[in-house]
């Protein structure tokens, strides 16, 4: 067994017991990246020197015995996290050489807890995409089959964990961007409740939907990472000041007597039979462990994609106005005045999908259309949220597929944006409703591609999700499978 095969909690234990060093772990991680990333393209930036230096410091701390939770563990960050002194591109040409002067809150917390950041991960440009094909640095490949997409937008964050380049990573989830790639790559991904993790220092896509979350090889490791980054942050007005529980304390509590809801609207035509079969199996496992599984209804599900794409693009069109070539980023100046500089900078700096969404969002907010599109979508958002709140009156959590199909082939959906958007159908409601959700591996399609299922929980009930997921995981081996790269 190689060092990189260790899971996050195994690494933590062995580091503390002196069985391994952080330098050895970090070097192994970097070597694994060197060996595999030509095929995967999961990383945009590798922080070799900084990582080794941090690993040395971690070993010194471990030797002194005062090391915090993540000391010495190599992790990687989606390139949407602002990192002081380390290039942060958001997979966009427009930020090709942007070196931030500050650390975001999640990054600062990881550093304070001793984590070793080995690099910045590839993604869809500005987190806009479901396949990781919208990257200025080229697509990320699925470790289980390099002709398939890894999912998106946190494709690099999922692929790097599946390929055992690092034991855990951070991603962001605006409409499924953690859960869907986790599902496609056979790892565990958790989107916390809106407001649970600070967004300060995370490049904004859609501010009312974006949320930071962990990806790891198993539920426990996800819990450890969530513990590290969760909590109120006065620098983020939308962060919620509610206590963070000990996510690992109740992990082994089981699901006996628990009520799990199956939303009938999620099991309809368009759902791949293999996916449906895998999720049905999960339901049986829960029943066998003593959980009660009942049908619930989320009647406004079919409106979620429309609602989501109006709100997300409207917010994005405004969030991306700051990329104007004045204070940072790449400038293109044709020398014909200010307005042309703006237009050239933005037209050449942004990729097609980003421009398409800016256009859609600008249109939805523009004079005469605001009420019909943006305001209408915000009202429908209320209905969707109410669906979930009503369902949670009856059940403790909700079980659904993550994506209608396993990972599709590169290039399959790039020509039809709407079809790509519709593939987010099962994940984006959680963002609209602000609730927490987790994706876990639960099977393999005939061609070997991973299939995942999703657990959705009440606001701030991440501990329930982790406990429920953990109970299932203990009966299965899907999460221990290792792709051959």
């Amino acid at each position, binding site marked *: 067994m190689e060092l990189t095969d260790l899971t996050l909690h195994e690494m933590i234990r062995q580091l503390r017991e002196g069985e391994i060093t952080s330098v050895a772990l970090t070097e192994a991680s970097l070597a694994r990246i060197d060996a595999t990333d030509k095929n995967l393209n999961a990383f945009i930036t590798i922080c070799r020197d900084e990582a080794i230096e941090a690993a040395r410091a971690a070993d010194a701390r471990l030797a002194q015995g005062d090391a915090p939770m993540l000391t010495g563990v190599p992790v990687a960050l989606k390139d949407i996290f602002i990192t002081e002194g380390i290039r942060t591109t958001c997979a966009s040409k427009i930020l090709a*050489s*942007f*070196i*931030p002067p*500050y650390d975001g809150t999640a990054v600062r917390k990881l550093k304070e807890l001793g984590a070793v950041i080995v690099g910045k991960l590839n993604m869809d440009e500005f987190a806009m995409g479901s396949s990781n094909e919208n990257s200025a640095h080229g697509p990320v490949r699925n470790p289980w089959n390099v002709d398939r997409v890894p999912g998106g937008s946190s494709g690099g964050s999922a692929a790097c964990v599946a390929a055992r380049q690092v034991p855990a990573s951070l991603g962001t989830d605006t409409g499924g961007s953690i859960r869907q790639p986790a599902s496609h790559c056979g790892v565990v991904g958790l989107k916390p*409740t*809106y*407001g649970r993790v600070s967004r300060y220092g995370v490049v904004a896509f859609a501010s*009312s939907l974006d949320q930071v979350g962990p990806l790891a090889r198993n539920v426990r490791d996800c819990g450890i990472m969530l513990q590290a980054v969760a909590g109120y942050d*006065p620098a983020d*007005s*939308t962060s*919620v000041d509610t206590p963070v529980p000990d996510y690992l304390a109740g992990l082994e509590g089981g699901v006996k007597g628990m009520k799990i809801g199956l939303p009938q609207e999620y099991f309809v035509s368009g759902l791949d039979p293999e996916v449906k079969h895998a999720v049905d199996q999960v339901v049986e496992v829960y029943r066998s462990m003593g959980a009660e599984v009942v049908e619930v209804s989320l009647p*406004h599900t*079919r*409106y979620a994609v*429309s609602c989501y*794409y*109006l709100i997300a693009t409207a917010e994005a069109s405004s969030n991306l106005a700051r990329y*104007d*070539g*004045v*204070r*940072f*980023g790449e*400038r293109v100046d044709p*020398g014909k*005045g*200010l*307005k*042309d*500089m*703006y*237009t*050239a900078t*933005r037209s050449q700096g942004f990729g097609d999908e980003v*421009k*398409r969404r*800016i*256009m*859609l969002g*600008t*249109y939805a907010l*523009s004079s005469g259309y605001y009420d019909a599109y943006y305001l*209408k*979508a*915000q*009202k*429908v*958002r*209320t*209905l969707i*949220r109410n669906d979930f709140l009503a369902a949670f009156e009856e059940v403790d959590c909700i079980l659904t597929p993550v994506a209608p199909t396993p990972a599709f082939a590169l290039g399959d959906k790039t020509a039809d*944006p*709407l079809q790509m*958007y519709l593939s987010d159908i099962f994940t984006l409601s959680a*963002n*609209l409703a*602000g*609730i927490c959700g987790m994706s876990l591996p639960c099977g393999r399609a005939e061609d070997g591609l991973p299939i995942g299922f999703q657990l959705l929980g009440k606001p701030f009930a991440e501990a329930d999700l982790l406990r429920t997921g953990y109970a299932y995981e203990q009966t299965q081996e899907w999460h221990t499978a290792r792709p051959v790269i």
Partner: protein
Amino acid sequence: MADKITREEVEHVARLARLEFSPAEVDALTGQMDTILAHVEQLNELDTEGVEPTSHAVTLENAFRPDAVTHSIGVDKALKNAPLHADGCFGVPKVIE
């Protein structure tokens, strides 16, 4: 085509967003936006009369900071990423008043 949006509107929106597209791109975008807008038209099936809009899914109010000075990052760091700077300022093409 469902005619939710015209080429001219696409060009107008592009100007608002400080983006420019080739004629072929405008054609493609017009078609794509049209399809998407036709799809989102489904929201009109729902009666939202009297429904409060949701800005944040989590109920939040009153986040403040005290009026106390914290450290600025300094001119050098502020300008470090600027494509053009001079005299401690960001440089931009001449702005005509």
